């Protein structure tokens, strides 16, 4: 996917995954992540894997990494909350690079009221779990932000989370 002809944020995010060498994206969708995964499915270099639950997605991505590829996990913040055990007992314990794109539901940009409780605890949870993260800036180079996140995960041999909002996909 050429970065020069891209229009949507979703395309730029996926171009970032491709450029960073991501070979597999494991996902449990929400409305936003589902739109992003639709773009992933158009990729010629990234294998899209639909998982039934988020912990699986983390382990699938780690397996791809251990087998010589690069895995990414695309989930909602509620799904990330499910992943404390596998983050500690697999990603951290075995020091496996694992890059996440997480939909930041319930922050000030989310129009859906019932996500608000998740928004309140997202960044405190990331901090408590010592997960390095960044909030995507759609006014900047989204592909480069993905690239920096993947690189950070590779260098630290651990997780890195890029939080996105629905408007980042437009």
């Amino acid at each position: 996917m050429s970065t020069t002809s891209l229009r949507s944020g979703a395309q730029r995010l996926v171009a970032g995954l491709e450029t960073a060498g991501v070979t597999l994206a494991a996902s449990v969708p929400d409305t936003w992540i589902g739109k992003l995964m639709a773009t992933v499915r158009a990729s010629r270099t990234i294998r899209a894997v639909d998982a039934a639950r988020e912990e699986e997605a983390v382990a699938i991505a780690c397996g791809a990494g251990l087998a010589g590829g690069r895995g990414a996990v695309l989930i909602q913040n509620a799904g990330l909350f499910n992943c404390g055990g596998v983050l500690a007992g697999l990603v951290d314990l075995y020091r496996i690079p694992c890059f996440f794109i997480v939909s930041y539901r319930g922050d000030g940009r989310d129009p859906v009221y019932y996500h608000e409780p998740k928004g309140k605890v997202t960044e405190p949870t990331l901090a408590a779990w010592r997960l390095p993260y960044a909030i995507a800036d759609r006014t900047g180079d989204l592909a480069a932000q993905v690239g920096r996140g993947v690189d950070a995960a590779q260098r630290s041999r651990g997780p890195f989370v890029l939080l996105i909002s629905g408007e980042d996909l437009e």
Partner: protein
Amino acid sequence: MTARKPLLEALVAMLAPDDVLVSCLGANSRYLPHLSVRVPVFALCDSMGAAIPLALGMALQRPDRHVVALEGDGSLLMCPNVLATVAAARPSNLTALLWVNGHYESSGGQALPSAPVDWTSLAKGLGITKVERVGDVPALRAAFPRARGAREPALLVVDVAFDPNEPIPPYSERPDEIRARFRIL
């Protein structure tokens, strides 16, 4: 009912040079360093339920290798949904063995919830069509090649004896050692 060790020894002896082995936490991971395993092994010592999805990621990344996952019934009972994920991804190079002893062996031998789980039916209901149940070494020796050659994800449900006095060796490898040694060439 057959003890775990002879079943595990029989399995290891059947692995081909191009296979990769992923083990769940507990007795399997603790026994494996003491067996003659000639394939790459990724042995978990934590993270219940991660063995099958970890193996799935490896299998999808490396379709030229056959990945064998060992999982326990306590772990899979936490997340049987992973079988639907495997069925959807449909790798032709993934075989899982589910060790069924009805107990959380590595945490003190507590019994699983006492429901009579029909693993074969559950797996088929979640989309795994190649499922066999085995209960001894000869049956495992017969079933594993069929599973491995199925060209679709396969599950062997292995009934294994639970012995609270079984002298299972302790973990003898640290995660950083396992991670550093694991290479799929």
